[in-house]
């Protein structure tokens, strides 16, 4: 649906996007993740035909952004960063204005606008000037504006920036609802947002696309080997000896020791070799007659993944 090949953009001598390639399929919700200034906004501006790339090819449903920009724009709804709307216009006039410029036939216009008002729940503020609205409502008007022509693709640049926590939850829910029917690309530098809304993540850093996959895939890829925290009760020397012998364990260390009668509870951090380390460890404990009270697969958070990928 969206196909980007070797996209490169220079601002004078500054490289903003460096041969980025990716594809987005119909119905996907893709999150652009990256530090500020990584090139997310530039990429979005190119897809929406606001900016021309220095080189590379971008097609939206087989329409090229150079050759048929009007056709491309018809298929995209765009909400730029900071949600720039005309403060002196009232909400209803604004939506009608955008609907008119979106060439929605006059007969359908008010029906479409009313539908969007329903979807984004802005019925209470229709006759207020946009300048008087809270940020949460402004963002909703921005979303309504982006969807008024029922586009296949929505591009949202930091749709939750500057909102309070409740508003963030509302907007994310709204995006998830919309995402059931539409293809969405959204950018953010807030990580929980990605796990909350997206089914695929593209991590951009320093103008380059450095990783792509589902949030789970990225976590396991960045993690490398499995790390397990285990709580074992058994004779310390024997336990250590058995773990050293086991071929599925690469490394381990004692984190904590609690005395409990003759033997003590050992809390160990074990780094596996190969997969299913926890299962193998369980069987080892059973064979050796150790008591096992904890067996937990440690996972990197998306924050840690992001930090590893972008600082490497």
């Amino acid at each position, binding site marked *: 649906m969206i196909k980007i090949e070797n996209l490169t953009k220079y601002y004078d001598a500054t490289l903003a996007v460096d041969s980025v390639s990716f594809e987005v399929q119909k119905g996907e919700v893709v999150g652009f993740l990256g530090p500020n200034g990584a090139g997310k906004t530039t990429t979005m*501006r190119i897809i929406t035909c*606001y900016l021309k790339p220095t080189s590379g090819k971008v097609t939206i449903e087989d329409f090229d952004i150079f050759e048929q920009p009007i056709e491309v*724009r018809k298929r995209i709804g*765009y909400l730029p960063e900071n949600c*720039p709307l005309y403060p002196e*216009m009232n909400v209803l006039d604004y939506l009608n204005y*955008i609907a*008119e410029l979106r*060439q929605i036939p006059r007969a359908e216009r008010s029906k479409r606008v009313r539908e969007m008002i329903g979807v984004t729940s802005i019925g209470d503020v229709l006759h207020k000037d946009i300048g008087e609205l809270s940020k949460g409502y402004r963002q909703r008007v921005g979303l309504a504006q982006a969807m008024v022509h029922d586009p296949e693709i929505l591009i949202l640049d930091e749709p939750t920036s500057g909102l309070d926590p409740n508003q963030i939850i509302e907007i994310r829910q709204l995006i998830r609802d919309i995402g059931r029917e539409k293809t969405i690309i959204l950018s953010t530098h807030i990580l929980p947002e990605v796990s909350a809304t997206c089914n695929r993540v593209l991590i951009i850093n320093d103008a380059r696309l450095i990783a792509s996959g589902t949030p789970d895939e990225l976590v396991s890829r960045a993690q490398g080997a499995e790390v397990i925290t285990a709580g074992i009760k058994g004779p310390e020397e024997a336990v250590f000896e058995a773990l050293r012998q086991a071929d599925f364990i690469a490394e381990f260390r004692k984190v904590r020791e609690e005395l409990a009668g003759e033997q003590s509870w050992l809390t160990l951090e074990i780094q596996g070799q190969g997969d299913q380390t926890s299962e193998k460890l369980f069987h080892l404990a059973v064979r050796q007659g150790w008591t096992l009270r904890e067996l937990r697969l440690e996972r990197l958070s998306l924050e840690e993944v992001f930090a590893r990928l972008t600082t490497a």
Partner: protein
Amino acid sequence: MRNVIAIARKEFKSYFDSPIAYIFITAFLLLVNFLYLWTFFVAGQADMRPFFGFMPFVFLFLVPSISMRLWAEERKMGTLEILLTLPIREVDVVLGKFLASFLFLVVMLLMTFNVPLLVGFLGDPDWGTVICGYLGCLLLGSSYLAIGLFASALSENQIVAFILAIAICTGMLIVGEAFFLILVPDFLVPLFEYLGLGSHFESMGRGVVDTRDVLYYLSIIGAFLYLNINTVEHRSWV
């Protein structure tokens, strides 16, 4: 064309959304009435030539302030990013904005109706000359607007756009004025006279409509609108 009208309608309404438009029109009316009536009773002539005579200079400051916000404000606020990612061509946006400012100029000129009314009441002016003078005002004002609109696209600061527009307009006005022409080599005088924004206006103020003058203004308007479309298409500001 539908897009041009939609944009023009929105921009025109935006003028009246803030009190600035009303203050602006009031200031304009007070200024031209004052300047005109200052000499009207002294001269004791029922014609409007002095009225049209100072228009190039009054417009010099007032017209760029009509056009200065049209692009600069949208650039500053970022609203341009939504506007220019709608499925409309840049030329439609440029024409829409120009049309809106042109209509505002028409409203401004219509509000000076009290001057011809007064002249008509006190004497018997040549109405052909009056209509011709107003036509000249419209053409000259539109040229200033096209220049101002172009200047507005060059900066995201309205004041910079305003000053830039005044600078370009002043430059194009004085090259045709007598005090400038004496500095110019003789063989270039006709050229500079032709290029000056004001020299074409004078004959219209006297009641002479020459197609060359009309064509001159139309080509100035066309040229600056063309430059404007180019600037907006390249959007070198992002």
